[in-house]
């Protein structure tokens, strides 16, 4: 009998599906993955592990998994595919894409990804090697996932910042310099249900054990709300008003850090004047939160030293998401909590190694400034939205879907869809995206499982490897680490492997530089001085003290700016509370509140007809977005697509626990199983996203039940405003709920 070998690697994507970061031990026997455990020595999770990672064996060896490339032989939606070889499959992509490029230009091919997984690196690499500027999170209305928050931070203080849970130093919370936040504001997130944005969610409960007090801001009671000093149950989409109200309290009561503001901030007077437009009574009226609670929350946060904010994606999805994030960044800036232990610590990719280009600077260093500029000429949305043009490399998703249908200003002919089941997941106005994809001449889907998107639109399917089967690298944020392949499954290949091979076909120059994926990884690792072999098998590395990618107080030490002067990486070198960059982009330089596109205030007549606010997207600990519905250990923990509805509202509507109900608005109707619970506000219903039913018919017209249960049918596309980033109305659509009438299906 063969022995068990343990591979020490890192989680990032297929398997747990998440934004990753944990240390894993993969137990392999006779070439087969037999067990997964958390790595006790890994600083990120210290041996702990979520249910999705613990169910990895059921994912890797699931009978539904794609095991080899397949081309469509029947009509789209008939589910008829035929096995082909990798060579045939890649030849087909090369031929079809090249033909489109010759006829319409490379920009006629969109490269679509889903959330921030280990995909941004490989897909942007392929997209640019092909020559298309259109790397798009297709379906994501308003591009409302982290990018708006990132943009607000970048243009306010020249860097990104996250709650400091000791994650940037090897000793973690035991580092002598570290202290836990005295107060944590958990703003629009339930960190217990996963690890969002590269942040291990349970670091918040770790901090609580070390004494951190909580303020929680959410329309919904969570585990954290019940343990908070102050819980603000706000009206969905009104976060900007709340943040401005808190800024007003902090400024007018003199609770801000005057020395820090005087030394490091610009535009304080202007911010104070703007905040003064948000007195408590007004903010209370807008947000549904009692004035006194807002004031107390502001005082709790401002008086605590240090204090930190843990924020979530609903901020991006609020109206003008970028400006909401800007207001929240001002909270930590004027209280002097930036880049201090236990505060909002500046987050940079370890050793400046780029895996997933998170900033314009990173794109420049990988591909050159000239190239990025050239890409901007045709990048979807770049001509219309100046912020978008000047930040990162994304095409604008709402304009992309419109253009796929209209062909204006230029035709879109094909879609490369990699690790995104948009029709079962993120696509707002699901029907519109469905039609847009059917409008393409050629769709390639790279994924692990059949799903509504592969079923409805794929012409070619390429089987993707899970985390147990791939080599990759990760520098989001620290430590720097690599992933190792422990097993092989069918003919599955990693996203890097697939994309490198194709990229070489489109850009033969690359053949000279990268023979294997490992060569490419070593190239990307260069700024660190380490190689793949040095980092593999659990040899992650943290940057040294007093270097630009390790905290603290780097602005004092001249570690943040390219000219090495003290200060921040902004045009003025200061934190720009009044953003000169936003001004240049024709945006309001200061944060403001605007009503959601549909609301009791903006559209009162609609609100009469559809009186409930639907918040989608609450996380389940056993699912990652639209994944895992077919994994038995996980599905049984959260078996049904539900709607959370308050007991009082349920009673008024005659709805009882467990009953199937209809949720509808002018865009359509879906069915959900009622979960009657006091955790939601009586005027809000919470409808988990990403639902499709793998146990039902996958072929047309059923498509695993999406037209019956996918909540995004009820959500409009964006963008919400003139920045192009933010405002996908996933949290603010107005709906009505009713009993399923007799005989209705």
């Amino acid at each position, binding site marked *: 009998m063969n022995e068990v070998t343990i591979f020490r690697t890192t989680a990032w994507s297929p398997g747990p599906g998440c934004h990753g970061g944990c240390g894993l031990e993969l137990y392999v026997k006779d070439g087969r993955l037999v*067990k*997964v*455990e*958390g790595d*006790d020595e890994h600083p990120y999770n210290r*041996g*702990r*592990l*979520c*249910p999705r990672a*613990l*169910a990895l*064996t059921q994912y890797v060896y699931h009978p539904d998994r794609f095991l080899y490339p397949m081309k469509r032989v029947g009509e789209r939606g008939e589910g008829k595919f035929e096995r082909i070889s990798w060579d045939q499959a890649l030849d087909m992509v090369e031929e079809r894409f090249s033909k489109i490029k010759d006829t319409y230009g490379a920009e006629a091919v969109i490269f679509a990804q889903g959330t921030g997984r280990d995909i941004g690196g490989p897909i942007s690499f392929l997209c640019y090697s092909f020559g298309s500027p259109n790397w798009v999170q297709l379906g994501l209305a308003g591009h409302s996932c982290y990018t708006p928050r990132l943009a607000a931070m970048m243009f306010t203080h020249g860097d990104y910042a996250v709650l400091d849970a000791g994650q940037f130093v090897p000793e973690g919370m035991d580092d002598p310099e570290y202290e836990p936040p005295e107060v944590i504001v958990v703003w629009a997130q339930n960190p*217990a*249900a996963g690890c969002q944005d590269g942040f291990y*969610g*349970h670091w918040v*409960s*770790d901090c*609580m*054990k070390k004494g951190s007090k909580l303020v929680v801001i959410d329309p919904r*009671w*969570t*585990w954290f*709300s*019940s343990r908070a000093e102050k*819980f603000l149950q706000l009206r969905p989409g009104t976060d900007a008003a709340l943040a401005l109200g808190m800024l007003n309290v902090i400024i007018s009561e003199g609770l801000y850090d005057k020395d820090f503001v005087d030394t490091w901030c610009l535009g304080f007077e202007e911010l104070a004047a703007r905040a003064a437009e948000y007195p408590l009574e007004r903010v209370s009226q807008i947000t549904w939160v009692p004035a006194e609670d807002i004031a107390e929350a502001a005082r709790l946060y401002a008086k605590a030293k240090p204090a930190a904010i843990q924020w979530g994606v609903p901020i991006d999805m609020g109206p003008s998401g970028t400006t909401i994030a800007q207001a929240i960044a001002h909270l930590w800036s004027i209280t002097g909590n930036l880049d201090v232990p236990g505060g909002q610590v500046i987050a940079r990719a370890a050793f400046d190694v780029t895996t997933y280009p998170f900033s314009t600077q990173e794109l420049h260093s990988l591909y050159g400034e000239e190239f990025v500029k050239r890409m901007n000429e045709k990048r979807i949305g770049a001509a219309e939205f100046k912020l978008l043009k000047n930040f990162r490399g994304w095409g604008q998703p709402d304009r992309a879907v419109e253009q796929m249908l209209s062909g204006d200003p230029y035709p879109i002919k094909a879609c490369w869809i990699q690790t995104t089941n948009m029709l079962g997941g993120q696509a707002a106005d699901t029907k519109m995206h469905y039609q847009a994809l059917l409008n393409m001449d050629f769709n390639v889907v790279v994924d692990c499982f059949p799903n509504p998107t592969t079923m409805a639109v794929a012409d070619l399917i390429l089987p993707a490897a899970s985390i147990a089967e791939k080599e990759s690298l990760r520098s989001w944020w620290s430590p720097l680490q690599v992933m190792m392949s422990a097993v092989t499954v069918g003919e599955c290949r990693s996203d890097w492997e697939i994309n490198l091979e194709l990229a070489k076909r489109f850009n033969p120059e690359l053949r000279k530089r990268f023979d294997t994926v490992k060569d490419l990884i070593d190239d990307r690792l260069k700024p660190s001085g380490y190689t793949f072999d040095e980092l593999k098998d659990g040899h992650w590395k943290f940057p040294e003290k007093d270097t630009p990618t390790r905290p603290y107080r780097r602005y004092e030490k001249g570690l943040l700016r390219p000219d090495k002067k003290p200060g921040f990486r902004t045009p003025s070198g200061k934190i720009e509370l009044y953003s000169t960059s936003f001004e240049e982009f024709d945006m309001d330089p200061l944060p403001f509140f605007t009503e959601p596109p549909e609301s009791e205030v903006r559209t009162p007549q609609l609100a009469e007809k559809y009186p409930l606010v639907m918040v989608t997207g609450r996380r389940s*600990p*056993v699912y990652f977005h639209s994944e895992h519905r077919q994994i*038995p*250990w*996980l*599905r*049984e*923990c959260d078996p049904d697509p539900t709607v959370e509805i308050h007991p009082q509202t349920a009673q008024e509507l005659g709805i009882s626990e467990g009953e199937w109900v209809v949720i509808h608005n002018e865009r359509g109707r879906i069915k959900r199983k009622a979960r009657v*619970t*006091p*955790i939601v506000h009586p005027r809000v219903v919470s409808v988990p996203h990403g639902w499709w039913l793998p146990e039902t018919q996958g072929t047309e017209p059923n498509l695993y039940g999406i037209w019956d249960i996918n909540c995004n049918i009820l959500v409009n596309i964006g963008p919400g405003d003139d920045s192009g980033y933010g405002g996908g109305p996933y949290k603010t659509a107005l709906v009505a709920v009713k009993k399923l009438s007799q005989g209705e299906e």
Partner: protein
Amino acid sequence: MAKKGLLIHYEYCTGCMACVVACKQEHDYPAGRWGIMVNDCTRETEGRVQVDFLPFPTDLCDLCARRTHQGKRPACVKHCMAECMFYGELHDLAKKMETMPRSVLFVPK
């Protein structure tokens, strides 16, 4: 040998379900067999909502005999995302409990 058990500091249990799946993986239980379940005890109380979870080791819990014999912690204890589960001798756990308000002690058959 002194009797062993599990101390569950449910004040910190976030309902993450790691214990549930860790147990199934360790024992190779198919869906439908549970060594531990997590009960949602959320309720309205005193004008607020209390979101609480209470893990319940079932009659299938053997305290991970195979693991603990090898000196490892039970699968649920090791993987608990909130680090709110502890394994040990009952009198030690009872002592520990004194500093952990809102906790329960479990002893198997």
